[in-house]
């Protein structure tokens, strides 16, 4: 078992809509170690995306403790969180979230623009990431010229190009057909096996979840390990 990257204790999240309180997460305890491939499964509304967003520093919990890489995310400002995300988190969205007016290269290069790398070094990193997901030859293509599966692979390349501490994937196969979904899952599995990349995958697809080494189930905001 690798170094402990994430330690969550008694984490809760409550949404307030008008005067109604909706408890989305309750008493979550979770440890993530370097090299883990964790799958968070659960039905819609079970709180899995909320948990992922909290780990990524995109959302804030209502209570509990959260230490990621020994950093206290709860005390960080929005801009500190943005810088922290750039260094440690690669995020893969369900809807790919590629910038339509930038090429695959331009999209993958985005996180590197915040680093001190030179133009040449950035190019090398981007091409390495694109080749890792099998799209080295499509660097100059715009998102509209790519299939859904290819778009998601570009999004994965963008997530790993800075060599982040962990990759967070939120329903990465949710918008894909079976064949494309398989390609994306193979890429994620390869990253975990070959490069020991820590991955947390949110999915409601049992097949996708089967790629993970650790499976957690969320039901009504409560974590159930299986």
């Amino acid at each position, binding site marked *: 078992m690798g170094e402990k990257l994430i330690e969550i204790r008694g984490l809760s999240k409550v949404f307030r809509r008008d005067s109604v309180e909706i408890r989305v997460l309750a008493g979550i305890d979770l440890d993530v170690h370097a090299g883990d491939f964790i799958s968070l499964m659960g039905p819609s509304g079970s709180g899995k995306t909320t948990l992922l*967003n909290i780990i*990524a520093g*995109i*959302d804030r919990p209502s209570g509990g403790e959260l230490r990621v890489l020994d950093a206290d995310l709860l005390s960080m400002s*929005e*801009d500190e969180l*943005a*810088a922290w*995300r*750039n*260094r440690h988190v690669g*995020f893969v*969205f369900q*809807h790919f*979230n*590629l*910038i*339509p*007016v*930038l090429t695959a290269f*331009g999209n993958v290069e*985005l*996180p590197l*623009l*915040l680093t001190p790398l030179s133009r040449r070094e950035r190019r090398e990193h981007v091409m390495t990431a694109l080749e890792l997901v099998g799209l080295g030859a499509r660097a100059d293509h715009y998102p509209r010229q790519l299939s859904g599966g290819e778009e998601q692979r570009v999004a994965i390349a*963008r997530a790993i190009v800075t060599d982040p501490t962990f990759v967070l994937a939120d329903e990465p196969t949710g918008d894909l057909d079976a064949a494309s979904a398989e390609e994306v899952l193979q890429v994620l599995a390869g990253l975990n096996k070959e490069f020991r990349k820590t991955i947390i995958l949110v999915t409601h697809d049992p097949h996708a979840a089967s790629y993970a080494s650790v499976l957690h189930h969320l039901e009504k905001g409560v974590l159930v390990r299986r």
Partner: protein
Amino acid sequence: MKIPLRYNLRSLLVRWPGSLMTAGGIGLTVAIVVTMMALVGGLENTFVDTGHDGQLVVLRQGSINEVNSFINRDLFPAVRFLPGVARDGRGEPLVSGEIVVVINNTRVDGQSSNMIVRGLTETGFVLRPEVRIVAGRKFRPGLREIMASRALAERFRNMALGETIRFARSQWKVVGIFDTGGTAYDSEAWADYTEISQDWDRPVYSSMLLRAESAAAADEIRRRVAADPRINLQALPQREYFAGQTGAAAGGTKALGYFIAVVVGIGACFAAMNMMYGAVMSRAAEIATLRAVGFRRRHVLASFLAESLIVGVAGGVLGCLLALPMHGISSGTANFQTYSEVLFNFRITPGILLRGLAYAAAVGALGGYLPARRAARMKLIDVIRE
């Protein structure tokens, strides 16, 4: 700029109809503003470029211009023989006694307007070396002959070469057309001093123009004239005198120009703001993605502000191109001190074009600031949830 400019450029290209409409709107605004600046610049240039260092205009004490100044002829020698007055090759003092009258004439467009007729002698030409006779010849002393500036000949009836104009008690034949290179004298017609003086029955001078031997001599002449209570005159540097006339002709136009620039600028700001709000709202997911990969709020703010600036500057370039054909076009406006027309050319200089671009950039920045701030302040989690 952390977020690459090509992101903004391509986003603008993708939404080209909206971008073009906004840039076009700003462009029209800039065209108006540049034209107004060209008008004011042309007017100011007319006065500021008039005169020579070391030359003085002598007026009656208390007069603000030549039209409402009169000087008895017996004072002419007192000025002519002041120490420090430069002399010509024959040893004659370079002092030109002149009379300025205002006559009413009909413009070629049928409107009635006033124009200045100056009576002067040969010395007046010596003191104005910028005068070029472009057609015909000089008037001859003792004859009812007149010369018109080229601008005046083009703007007023009966002022073309060979035509005759009636004013005062006589018919005056136009025998020459002159050009003084865009100075205030290009709004005048010139004739012999004695003929004008007699025909108007005004045995006085309106002003005297003299050349001093040096700058120090000019200062001394000014001091002597001001200090002599018998002559009751004032001597002003020729350049300063004409620069002082600028306000009378250009002041109102300038104020109107600023007013128009502000009003149309506010309208253009709203156009830019509308476009940028649309851009921000339709690109919420892109903004969220940028924030998610690590870009900070200030990066997003700078990016959208830059996008609005690009539209503004593009509009500025368009506006400058639209306004350029105005360069050199002749027009006239009233000088409310002399109640006569000042003729000038619209003058678009590189400085005016730069100010036009700066104005456009300011419109872009002001219009884009609030939408850019909104983009920067979007809560990442809210956008991601949507």
